[in-house]
């Protein structure tokens, strides 16, 4: 058993942006081809309804690769450490970059993993493995974490999509990230702006009664057809319509301007702050999986100047998000993952940038199912090698699922074919789990 550096804390037991209904339906149906011939009634084996109830996972994805030196694993080495110092956190003995003063004060709700070692330094490939928890070398495509969590935590009566990517400044659609689980578990991109979801109000001249009559007719025709012909495509099509209707009824959930001005100010009126505020509302609504993107961390050039600004943009809203979840009692049923695809090189290049570095990097977690105040693993003083408790994306994937009560050693049954939920050759970081 690897040694864990740890201070244990008691764990938790306008309408201009968003998704257009037509686009939602269209992209959903486009994705249907991928599941032709498979049953939609796959299910996770071994999941415990009791431990999962109301759980959420929020991924804050720092796209491009945040530097571990300028965030979770600062170093004092003069050639590799960079100009930023480390600061103490709310957990005695844990220091993080001085660029994260607000997050440092939430460390007693968090844990760090400083010993991640992967082997892909291409953004797309690395992104794929950290999201899927697999190293794909076969023809099989694996569902991403959001799809697995959405499936694993799904409830029959839940009115919203289980896998939501928040966005600012655009309309959304279904992504193709659920693989064999089927498109109903793929992410839906929904914006955080005034008015909630765009194009979800009835057109002028259409009454609620008339609209309801239209849907009754659709259901009748669908039902009659389904009594003669059954297909996955048709079921998904029907499910898509019904989910779109439920989303229309819940449009106000996505309207963050319904929050008090003081709350909006506290999160910050940046794109990131708005997304976090929407994420909190979605956690309150018990959406199983929410992803927030904070993009552009690929600083091959001017790394320190850019981190100065980017980490500041992240730090205060993120720390407020964690504190707010805690104060509202939501953190004890929410796992927050600050994810990225790899770290950045110890070597500082001639543009004062850092390049891609999958060999030794870090992530942070907060919330439920983990040991708060834990630090897993270690790198050497220059940050070049992992020196203790090396883990990779496959261990992480198991750990995320276990933290929210999904048995990652279980399997999905897809039309009689069994797929392990996570890579069966690996397991969770047990000492991190609560």
């Amino acid at each position, binding site marked *: 058993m690897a040694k864990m550096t740890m201070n244990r804390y008691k764990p938790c037991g306008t309408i201009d942006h968003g998704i257009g209904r037509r686009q939602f339906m269209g992209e959903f149906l486009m994705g249907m081809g991928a599941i032709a011939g498979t049953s939609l009634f796959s299910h996770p084996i071994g999941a415990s309804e009791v431990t999962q109830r109301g759980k959420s996972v929020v991924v804050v994805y720092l796209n*491009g690769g945040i530097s571990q030196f300028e965030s979770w694993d600062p170093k004092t080495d*003069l*050639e590799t450490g960079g*100009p930023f*110092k480390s600061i103490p956190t709310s957990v005695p003995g844990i220091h993080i970059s001085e660029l994260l003063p607000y997050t440092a004060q939430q460390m007693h709700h968090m844990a760090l993993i400083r010993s991640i070692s992967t082997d892909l330094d291409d953004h797309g490939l690395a992104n794929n493995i950290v999201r899927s928890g697999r190293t794909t070398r076969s023809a099989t495509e694996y569902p991403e974490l959001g799809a697995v969590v959405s499936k694993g935590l799904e409830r029959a009566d839940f009115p919203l999509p289980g896998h939501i990517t928040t966005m600012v400044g655009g309309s959304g659609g279904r992504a193709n990230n659920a693989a064999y689980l089927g498109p109903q578990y793929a992410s839906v991109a929904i914006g955080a702006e005034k008015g909630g979801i765009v194009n979800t109000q009835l057109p002028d001249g259409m009454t609620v009664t008339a609209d309801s009559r239209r849907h009754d007719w659709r259901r009748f025709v669908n039902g009659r057809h389904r009594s003669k012909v059954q297909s996955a495509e048709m079921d998904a099509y029907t499910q898509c319509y019904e989910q779109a209707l439920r989303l229309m009824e819940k449009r106000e959930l996505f309207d963050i301007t319904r929050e008090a001005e003081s709350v909006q100010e506290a999160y910050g009126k*940046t*794109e990131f702050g708005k997304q976090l505020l929407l994420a909190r509302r979605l956690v309150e609504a018990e959406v199983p999986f929410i992803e927030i993107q904070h*993009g*552009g*961390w*690929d*600083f*091959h*050039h*001017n790394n320190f*100047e*850019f981190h*100065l*600004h*980017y980490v500041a*943009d992240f730090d205060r809203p993120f720390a407020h998000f964690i504190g707010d979840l805690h104060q509202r009692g939501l953190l004890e049923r929410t796992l927050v993952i600050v994810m990225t695809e790899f770290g950045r090189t110890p070597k*500082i290049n*001639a*543009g004062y*940038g850092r390049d891609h570095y999958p060999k030794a990097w870090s992530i942070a977690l907060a919330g439920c199912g983990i040991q708060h105040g834990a630090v897993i693993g270690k790198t050497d003083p220059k940050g070049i090698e992992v020196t203790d408790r090396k883990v990779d994306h496959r261990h992480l994937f198991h750990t995320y699922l276990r933290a929210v009560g999904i048995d990652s050693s279980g399997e999905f049954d897809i039309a009689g074919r069994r797929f392990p939920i996570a890579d069966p050759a690996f397991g969770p970081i047990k000492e991190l789990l609560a």
Partner: protein
Amino acid sequence: MTTKFDPRAAKPISDWEHHSKLLCCRVDPTGTYVVAGAIDYTIQRWEIATGKKTSLAAHDNWVRTLGFSPDGNTLYSGAYDGRWIAWDITSETPQPIRVIQAHAGWVRGLAVSYDGKQIATCGNDKRVKAWSANDGQLLREMVGHSNIPYCLQFVPNNYDLVSGDIVGNIHQWRGEDGTLVRSFTASEIFFHIGDIAPFGGIIHLSFSPDGKKLTACGLHKCSNAPAGNRRAVALSMDWTTGEKRPKQECLKKDIDATMWRVAYHPDGTMIGNVAKDIGFWNPDAEDAFHLVETPSDIFDLDLHPNQIDLYTAHFDGHVRCHRLGSSA
């Protein structure tokens, strides 16, 4: 035998090495020493006549900016530890005379007044400050930059200051009371990535030898900031009217670069760095008339008081000197 300034005849005459990357360099006004600031928190002093190296250690972070008193007896350094330090630079083992905690966050720029009586600094706290060189007392504090000021200079023969920031604004501050006199914008050399981080801006400011022109240098033609796709540039303004002159860049070589420093030869030739090259521009000429290639990226440069020898501080830890002329 005299040497005539002729960049086309440039040849390397010295090359001194330190084990850490260098960010800045200056030659003292007597021409005795060249000093360089490093990312190992030290300042390195080389005696020009002998190449003897001495290390000065008192900062606690990267040493970013340097300046000399007019008599050459005192070196001033500014670092990412937020401090400026005065050093008795002529002693065998220079020690700090004065250590001033100047800014919250990094010190970005430092300048010494024409008479050596005032020191000015700017830093990450967006402040510009003027200090008494004699006792380190804060004389005035200037607030008005909307984002981090990178650099500053005293107006020639004056206590007025000009400071340039990371978002392309240049402010002139009155020497008597620190009030804002006027502002220029140089948005041509400023970019923004993703509503989060500024890129470029006023990296350095220099006055032309006749004091009639203020030159800002940095970068432009940015196509991918995180990847560093940009081109080096200098943008000069008429000091009286603020009228902008044509941008000066390096069209001879299409390379990613930031112009970290512009220095002027007394004949008006502008000297700037373009990645590993030293570039030379005739007044207001759009393209460099000559480039001198060096082995490593240049982050600062300074002319020796003989106005012939040019010292450069490099990413590979070397300070190099090129003699810009031929014997006549």
